[in-house]
């Protein structure tokens, strides 16, 4: 009993807070909390995906026409950028587990560069939509846009506007999550710079990584659903 107490006191730091029995229990508790948070995030985005599915079912042709007006090459590039950033996140955690501080810092910086590149490309996409008057609102215009696969038929601008509203809300909410992620990773970078992460304690990296991967998964679904409804030549 006395041995256990002394071990407990020796480890008293962020790697073992007072109310946990051992580091493993603390790691499990923290990870469980993060997964419960991600569950609420899934339901948050789930409502939007549900709205999208309902309207897509009703106005499929109009959605296909509107989807075709978005630059799918930019969207595809952004998917690849996010996948690369997810790789650098797992490599950062591996670097922390094997005490490679400079590699850890390099991977965190790379992750943030990929994140910023994603937002930059997203910005180009939004600019195009503004220039084409595809932003829902008073100056919205989507006249004489053909419905793919139905020659001579044109999309209903009101229905296309619903697509663009969903496009801006869903990608906008996703971009907001990216901005929050960049904030988290700035903090992780500062901690890594100060040498706070060791093979025994790098829980913040793992938690930040879980968040980053979740945002990646949301995009993995957004890309085909918004950009690739009907791309037949």
């Amino acid at each position, binding site marked *: 009993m006395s041995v256990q107490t002394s071990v407990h006191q020796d480890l008293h730091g962020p790697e073992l807070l007072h109310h946990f029995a051992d580091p493993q229990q603390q790691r*499990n508790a923290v*990870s*469980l909390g993060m*997964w*419960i948070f*991600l*569950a609420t995030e*899934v*339901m948050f985005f*789930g*409502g939007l*995906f*549900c709205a999208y*599915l*309902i309207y897509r*079912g*009703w106005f499929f042709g109009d959605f296909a026409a509107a989807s075709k007006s978005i630059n*799918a090459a930019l969207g*595809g590039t952004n*998917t*690849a950028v996010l*996948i*690369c950033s*997810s*790789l650098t*996140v*797992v*490599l950062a955690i*591996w670097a922390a587990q094997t005490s490679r501080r400079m590699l850890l810092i390099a991977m965190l910086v790379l992750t943030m560069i990929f994140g910023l590149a994603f937002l930059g490309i997203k910005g180009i996409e939004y600019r195009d939509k503004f220039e084409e008057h595809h932003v829902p609102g008073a100056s919205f215009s989507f006249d004489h846009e053909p419905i793919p*696969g139905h020659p001579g038929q044109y999309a209903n601008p009101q229905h296309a506007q619903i697509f663009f509203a969903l496009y801006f809300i869903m990608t906008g909410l996703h971009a907001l999550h990216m901005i929050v992620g960049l904030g988290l990773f700035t903090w992780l970078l500062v901690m890594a710079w100060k040498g706070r992460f060791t093979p025994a304690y790098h829980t913040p990296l793992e938690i930040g*990584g*879980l968040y980053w*991967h*979740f945002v*990646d*998964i949301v995009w*993995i*679904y957004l*890309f*085909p*659903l918004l950009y*690739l*409804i*009907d*791309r*037949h*030549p």
Partner: protein
Amino acid sequence: MYFGVWIALLVGTVLTYEVAKIDLGAYNSAVALIIATTKALLVALFFMHLKGASEKLLKLVVISTVFFLFLLMALAMADYGTRHWS
């Protein structure tokens, strides 16, 4: 292993982009969702380390997340899909 998953995810991205250009009728959406779900599973199992997670409580949270998302979608679709809107 991480690099293998990364390559698979990039291949999946190119695949979903190219398949969208082929006319498969109603199957286009199905193929797109299958590829997206495969990619999401790869990220969750390997990058988020769900594979090999031993804690039962964690598994319960993940499974109930998927279940409630399914419930949300299925009940909403069952409602809107069977109503006869004029």
